[in-house]
Every structure is written in structure tokens, then in C-alpha cells.
């Protein structure tokens, strides 16, 4: 590795470590999503291949406890199967007291949220937890209530946002917990099928414009549902649309500027469709060099300051490349779940809902 590359790599490592220690104040307004920010930092160190050497056992077990303290448990005296609020919250912003064993809702708006449950499980798996404190029955029963008549999901009780993002989260959670009883798979598939637009990529909902982010959510969900390629109208056309998203880097819709995060959304979609070999990875790496910052991490576009989401997505985009093309020491990414191949191995071999007894 050249000096420049080694310096970039150590800057990236420092960037993510700093954010795991103390979040800069402009993340205050995103505190409801703090779990996701933690996932970006922890999964990034895993993909960089330095999670074990750059963080202490004490830090890692502290993170595990913090994640478990965000798990909303069933209310006492009621059947678990009737619970609707369970799952993980993004942070204790609504006033929940720290309790990593049996945290309850602290007010009617304090509930689990599908994106937070997905990223919480991802963090636990990455950190080598065996998921034995995850209340699978409660999560799965709450999830049933979140699926809408059209097959899509809202992220939490009472929400009116329902789209491909949360359908993907529900599939990722079901896969990680090895239990699909919280998802009506036929209805979910129907929603994904109806959201394939005339461009043969996917919108967030039926009739909406095809978009790199929702296309990732759709194709990852189809992968987890074992419905590829049969659920696609025409795989070649979907691949063609995805490849057309490359100028040097990737963008999410025709005529939008290249943006760091689509290196992951579009790249992972191509990988799941066995078409990543057609990507001009040299051009992609050159683009990502222009959004990689001297502070470590990546910005959205060249000259932008780095942020956690784009830093993580830039790194994830590079982690899709073959072993020989990735930077030394880094780990390969498993696209459908957004965790390293190493973490996927632990999910399948080390966690209680997967491990064969």
C-alpha cells in the first residue's frame, strides 16, 4: 500500500472511531435515528477489518448493552402475541431510563422502529453477540401489525410512512431472526412487483419514479425472500438501468449528479443481480477518491464535508469489489444485509436463532 493510501485508511479509521466516541452537535436533530449512526460507525470499522484491534472489549460490550437498552419489551400482564410496540428504538430521546434487560415504553410515542430494529440487530451480530437477549416473539408479533393491506410496511405503530425502505427492513429482520412469521410474504412480493416502474427499476411505492435507493431495498428484499430473478419483469432491463447510473461514480436517477452513497445502493443491486462485473470499477474508485476527504470519511459529492451516512456508503461501495481490488485488510460486504461476509458467517453459525442445536 502506498503512503497516501495508508494515510487515507488511517484517517477513515479515526473518522469512524471519533464518531463512535462523541457525535458532533449537528447530529442532534437526527437523534431519533442514533442507532443507525452507531451502525454506520461499527460496521465501518468491521469492513475496514480493524474492529477488534481498534476498539477495546470494554467498548464493544458497552455498545452491546446500549443497544439492548433500546429494546422495547412487552408490557407485563399481556400476551406477547398482542404486543404492537416492540422492537428497538433509535435512542432514549423520549426519556426511557437505561435498562438493558427489560426496557418498557416510557410514553405512548416511545416504540420500536423497523429501521432501528434492523440496524440494532446488525450491530449485535457484528459485535459477536449471540442475540440471546433479543425478544424474537415480541418483535415478530409487532411486525405483523406494521404490514399494510398493500404489502408494504410502516416503521412503527401510528406512522403513515409506508414504502420500500421499511419492507426491506422487515425482510432483513426476518432473515436475521430466522423467522418469517411476522411477514405475509405473498403480499410483500406483490408490493415489490407493483413498484417496478416502466424503467424496470423500483420506486418507493407503485407509480413512483425509479430510484437507486428504493431499487436496492427492492432487490435486497427479493434476495432475502428467495424471489430473484423470478419476481423481476425483465432482469436484463433492470441491469441496463442500473449500469446506466454510472457516469464515473453512481447516481440514483437519470441526470442526477454522481453521489457517493449510490456506489453502495446501485453497486449492491448489480452485485445481487450477478452483474457487478460490468461496472467500471477504476472510474468508480477515481470518483470516490474525489469525495474522500482529508479529515477521513466521504462527503456526498466532491468538496463536501464528510458525514456518517456517505462515509459508510462510500466504504461499503468499495467493499463490494473483489478481494484483489479491495484495500488491504478490508473485509467483503454482504449486500442484501449490509454487513460484512464475516458478520454473516457469525449470524449463521453463532447466533441462537440460526445455530443448530
Amino acid at each position: 500500500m502506498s503512503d497516501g493510501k495508508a494515510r487515507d485508511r488511517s484517517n477513515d479509521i479515526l473518522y469512524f472511531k471519533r464518531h463512535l466516541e462523541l457525535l458532533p452537535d449537528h447530529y442532534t436533530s437526527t437523534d431519533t435515528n442514533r442507532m443507525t449512526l452507531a451502525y454506520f460507525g461499527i460496521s465501518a470499522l468491521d469492513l475496514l477489518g480493524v474492529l477488534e484491534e481498534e476498539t477495546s472489549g470494554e467498548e464493544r460490550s458497552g455498545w452491546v448493552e446500549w443497544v439492548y437498552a433500546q429494546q422495547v419489551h412487552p408490557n407485563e400482564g399481556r400476551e406477547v402475541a398482542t404486543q404492537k410496540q416492540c422492537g428497538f428504538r433509535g435512542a432514549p430521546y423520549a426519556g426511557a431510563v437505561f435498562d438493558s434487560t427489560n426496557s418498557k415504553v416510557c410514553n405512548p410515542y416511545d416504540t420500536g422502529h423497523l429501521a432501528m430494529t434492523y440496524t440494532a440487530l446488525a450491530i449485535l451480530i457484528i459485535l459477536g453477540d449471540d442475540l440471546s437477549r433479543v425478544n424474537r416473539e415480541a418483535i415478530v408479533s409487532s411486525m405483523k401489525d406494521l404490514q399494510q393491506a398493500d404489502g408494504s410496511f410502516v416503521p412503527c405503530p401510528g406512522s403513515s410512512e409506508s414504502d420500500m425502505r421499511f419492507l426491506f427492513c422487515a425482510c432483513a429482520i426476518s432473515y436475521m431472526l430466522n423467522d418469517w412469521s411476522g411477514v405475509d410474504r405473498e403480499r410483500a412480493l406483490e408490493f415489490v412487483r407493483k413498484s417496478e416502474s416502466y424503467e424496470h427499476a423500483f420506486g418507493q411505492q407503485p407509480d413512483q419514479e425509479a430510484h437507486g435507493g428504493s431499487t436496492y431495498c427492492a432487490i435486497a428484499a427479493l434476495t432475502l425472500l428467495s424471489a430473484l430473478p423470478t419476481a423481476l419483469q425483465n432482469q436484463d432491463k433492470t441491469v441496463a438501468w442500473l449500469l446506466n447510473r454510472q457516469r464515473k461514480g453512481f447516481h440514483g436517477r437519470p441526470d442526477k449528479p454522481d453521489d457517493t452513497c449510490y456506489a453502495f445502493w446501485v453497486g449492491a443491486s448489480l452485485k445481487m443481480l450477478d452483474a457487478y462485473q460490468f461496472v467500471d470499477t477504476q472510474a468508480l474508485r477515481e470518483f470516490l477518491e474525489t469525495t474522500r476527504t482529508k479529515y477521513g470519511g466521504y462527503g456526498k459529492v466532491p468538496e463536501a464535508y464528510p458525514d456518517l451516512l456517505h462515509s459508510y456508503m462510500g466504504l461499503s461501495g468499495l467493499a463490494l469489489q473483489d478481494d484483489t481490488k479491495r484495500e488491504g485488510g478490508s473485509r467483503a460486504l454482504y449486500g442484501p444485509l449490509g454487513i460484512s461476509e464475516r458478520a454473516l458467517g457469525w449470524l449463521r453459525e453463532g447466533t441462537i436463532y440460526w445455530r443448530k442445536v
Partner: protein
Amino acid sequence: MRSARQYRQEILAALQKDLKEELDFIDDMASEHPKSYQIWHHRQIIIERLNDPSKEISFIDKMLALDSKNYHAWSYRQWVVSTYNLWDDEIPDIDRLIVEDIRNNSAWNQRFFVMSRRPQGFGEDDIVKEVSYILQKIRLAPNNESPWNYLRGILEFAGKPFDEFPQIEDVCRSFEAKAMIVPHALNFLLELNAQQVQAGQGERVAECEKISKQLEEHDPVRKLYWRHRLEQVKAFRN
């Protein structure tokens, strides 16, 4: 924050607040946070309760003037148009947006939404009119991906193969005569020739090779893909 938005809905109802005033509040908030899901959903619920969409298209147009590809604005627009049956005025408005920015793929998507969902359906006359509209837009900006994608989509929707409209091939070939290289047009010609190879005209492979070479040279970021496409064509012949 989601829960604050839910709480606001609840107190608006409990205090029987004037919802028109709430719309003014949303106008201000939306200009500051145009990409917040919550604001758009909040607005939808208020409009449902008022059952009055009269100001909505002009509100959305104002938001699209700030960012003509705002995903939330377009999604909300589809809801307003289909819920309140505002189909008739939609095509002229989309035309205006396409004239303002011919590369606005969101507007092209909205055009497809209207053509495919409006209650009067989409007939033989409509597809002929659409093809001529699209080709006119392609001539104005041949390297603009949006009308090419829309062309494929609307033909598929109408159940028409593209050789039923020879003017499409004419437009694709017209660029060559002007010594213009247009990868989207070459891609169309490649597909046309590939279909002929598949139909048994093996000699068309040479034409495919020629087009494929041009694509490799002029669209180098997809060089490996164009090679793969040629391999697929050759496999038909065998």
C-alpha cells in the same frame, strides 16, 4: 421527529384548530425542510380532513420550483391527482416542466403515471401521439436518457413492438447521417438488429459488431457491458 408530528395531529384535532392556518404553518416548514417525509404526510392528513385540494397543485409547483426532482413532492402530487381526480390539467403542467427542463426524469415519470392511470385509458391514437411527442424531444436533446426510457416504457405499456413505428429507427439513423454519436440510439439499433439475428438473419451479426464497437468507443464506462451484449447476440446465432 415522528412522534412530535403525531402529537401535533392529535392536539390539532382536540383543540379544533383552524386547519387552514395549519397549512400556512406547513408552507413555511416545507420551504425550510423540503425533504422531510413527516411534513408531507402531515399535509396529506390535513388535506384529507379539510377535503379541499384547491391549493395543492400550486403549493406543489412552488416546491418543485425549488427542486424540480423532489421525490416527496412528486409522490404527494400523485396522491392529490388521483384522489381528487385532477387528471385533466396534469398533462399541460407536465409539458411545462419538461419544456423548462427536458432532462427532468421525475416529470417524465409523472407523464407515464398519467398516461397509464387516468380513467379514460390509453388508446391507439394516444400511442401514436406519444411516439411523435417523444421523438420530437429526443431530437432536441438526443443524449437525454429520460425520453428513451419513456419510449421503451410506453411502447411496452401499449403492447407495441418498436418496429411498428419505423419513424423510431429513422430518428436513430438520422444521427449517423449528421456524424453524431448517440449511445441511446445505437443501443436501440443494436436491439433491433439483435432481434433480427434471433429471428434467423445471421448476417445481421456484422451490423451488431459494428454498433457494439462504436458503443465501446463512445460509452467507455460501459465497455464491458457492450461486449457482453455482443456475446449475447452471437449466442443467438449459434
